[in-house]
């Protein structure tokens, strides 16, 4: 940056032998450049360099504070992600369990439904009745659950839930209704029906 070199103020002709004019006043002269002219800029430069270094250090500190702050945040979020994942798998396990055929059948039975094994179809194109329609008698399959599912132990039936959840399991409830003939499910207070307003 400092520029205290001697320099020619007037450049000599590139090829002096071709120049016809030669004289004392045209001789090159050399002069010492005063160093005082460059003193002030050097201080400024030093200061600015120090300031730069300082700024870099401060920025780096702030950055690493930010990153470690982020690390704590990531750690907390990771932990809550794990927790939420656990909750999700736990509730989906519950859902899959109650949607098993044993659970559905026991609940349908508890709601007073019976299966009809003799299907009949109405063909819309000509109104023909296909098959031999008959009333539902409940089939053999509609009795006690004979297909065990250890996961359903302690899961209450849907009809038992509003009454404070006595906690009777599907299996035992189905076993209890096994006595009441497979032909018709005993419904004491009528079939549940929706309230229409």
């Amino acid at each position, binding site marked *: 940056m400092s520029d205290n070199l001697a320099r020619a103020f007037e450049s000599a002709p590139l090829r002096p032998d071709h120049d016809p004019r030669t004289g004392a006043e045209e001789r090159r002269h050399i002069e010492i450049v005063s160093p005082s002219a460059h003193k002030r800029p050097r201080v400024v430069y030093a200061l600015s360099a120090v300031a730069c270094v300082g700024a870099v250090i401060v920025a780096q500190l702030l950055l690493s504070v930010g*990153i*470690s702050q*982020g*690390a*704590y945040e*990531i*750690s907390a979020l*990771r932990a809550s992600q794990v927790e939420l994942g*656990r*909750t999700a*798998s*736990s509730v989906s*396990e519950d859902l*899959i*369990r109650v*949607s*098993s*055929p*044993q659970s559905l*059948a026991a609940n349908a039975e508890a709601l007073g439904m019976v299966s009809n*094994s*003799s*299907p*009949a*179809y109405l063909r819309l194109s000509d109104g023909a009745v*296909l*098959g*031999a329609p*008959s009333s539902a008698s409940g*089939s*053999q*399959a509609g*009795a006690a*659950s*004979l*297909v*065990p*599912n*250890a*996961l*359903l132990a302690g899961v209450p039936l849907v009809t038992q839930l509003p009454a404070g959840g006595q906690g009777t399991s599907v299996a035992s409830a189905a076993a209890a209704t096994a006595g009441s003939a497979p032909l018709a499910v005993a419904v004491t207070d009528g079939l549940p029906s929706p309230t229409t307003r």
Partner: protein
Amino acid sequence: MAKRSMSSKRRVAATIVVLVAIIGLFVVRLVDIQVVRADSLSADSLGNRSVEKTVYGSRGEILDANGVVLAGTVMRYDVVVSPKNTSTFTRTVNGKDVSVPVAQAAAEIGAITGQTAEAVQGIVTDSLTENPKSDFAYITKQVDVDAFRALDALDIPWLYLYQNPSRVYPNGAVAGNLVGFVSGEGEAQAGLELGQDSCLASNNGIETYERGADGVRLPESTVTTKAAVDGSDVVTTIDSDLQWFVQQVLAKQAQATGAAWGNVVVQEVKTGKLVAVADYPAVDPNNVSATTNPDDRGSRAFSASYEPGSTFKALTAASVIDAGLADPNSQIVAPFRYLPANGANINDSSGHGDLRLTLTGVLIESSNTGMSKFGELLNDQQRYDYMTKFGVGSVTESGFPAEDSGILHAAENWDNQTSYATMFGQGLTTTALQVSSIYQTIANNGVRMPVQLVSGCKAADGTMTEVPSAEGTQVVSPTAARETADMLEMVYQQGWLAEKWKIPGYRVAAKTGTAQMPDGKGGYTKGYLVSVSGFAPADDPQYVVSVSLADPVNMNSSAASAPVFQEVMSQVLKKYRAVPSGAAAPDLSGTW
């Protein structure tokens, strides 16, 4: 110049002094760190080390045809204590430090895991008597998330919880005999879990990271040294709802008739897919130990072969018609006892005079002597070839582990009696699957489709691999198959069980069988294996249903299996919306 030299000397001296001082400082610091404080520093660094963590790959699921999970993987937790560290500890409750003795902690743990406080403490003391420095003892294994959270909240310093991925079977015993189960260590033990292990298996991965003194993972320090690989899903052809229904019906009838065991196979005619394979007794893979007999833990439909009996007559009839040697109206005289020229001795199950029967009539009456007179039109080798083409004597294409091929001796090894007995399903053995496959072939215009239980191995990106072949083989001519089906429809209409297995609105083809069961000592037991096999709708066959009940002591005839056939077939026709039959059944005469 002298002054300058002085100052320069002083400067050099000062520099040396400063350098020596700095180096001295470093040496002191070095000795301090490397020698004096070495132990405490390396102890500090323990908490600062990089941590290695197992990343669990999840074992693939076993799905039914509609994507219902039959077997899945869930995270469970093992509860572990460090017996040598088991002591009273302090716990902060509402900002106050409370001292918790071991007995109280044991009671708290037991309340969650379902053990008594004594049992928990017993585990600790047992472990300590065995090894006073014991640092590891299982309290219990595989607790669920709720128990995990409750145990974690106890804040007991000597209690640890380790992840342990575990298998769950949401539908319990529905298809339990097919799905199989895995051991506590996650090793495949039976069924599809074992047979499809190469598809299902996962690989655990390892990742390492560094953590600070407070346990927080340092940013950018995670290195996955080995990636975890999840297993692929096995997609079966089973319909879980139908499977449940079939198992329920089978179990009910098996209990009512006192049967030792039984099975029902439901197969799609056009594709050979198995939509339900029910076994009784059923096994709940969630609770395998509840099934005490090891034979009940597998699927007898695949693994048990027995003499099929009269259901096999359909095969002989189809073979004879295909060879052009008879048709449904061909006539013979069926005596009670038939003594063919080769010295065999054939008789029917109950005494009767000579009957003038057509081939249709032979099937309706299920006459052994009548069948023999038709069967002898083919030589042994020809009948053997037909049987092998129908799949008798070799395992099916299902890929189920430990499947039985049944016994079919080469034709040249048949003795005189066997030569005739094989015409009506004795002197050879078949599995329930093979019988179902024979009826599938007859129902499908003589084209046998590969028996299919698994439709493929589905990777995470949805691509299916190991898709089985769906190429059928023509076993008998379409005409022979059609005529056999017509005769079986006559059996359904006019056989002795006609009232028991009636399905209003549909035309059905079916045949009963009553076979003696081997006692394992070269003789026969007193019990019978009673069966019904058939398909519907007869005018456009869609499904084969094959029912077998072993030794139904309260009702030792195929009348025991007929109601199961009727209910299952009704449900199948309803479920798959099979259109009720319109055209009238053919009219074939059984007598002449």
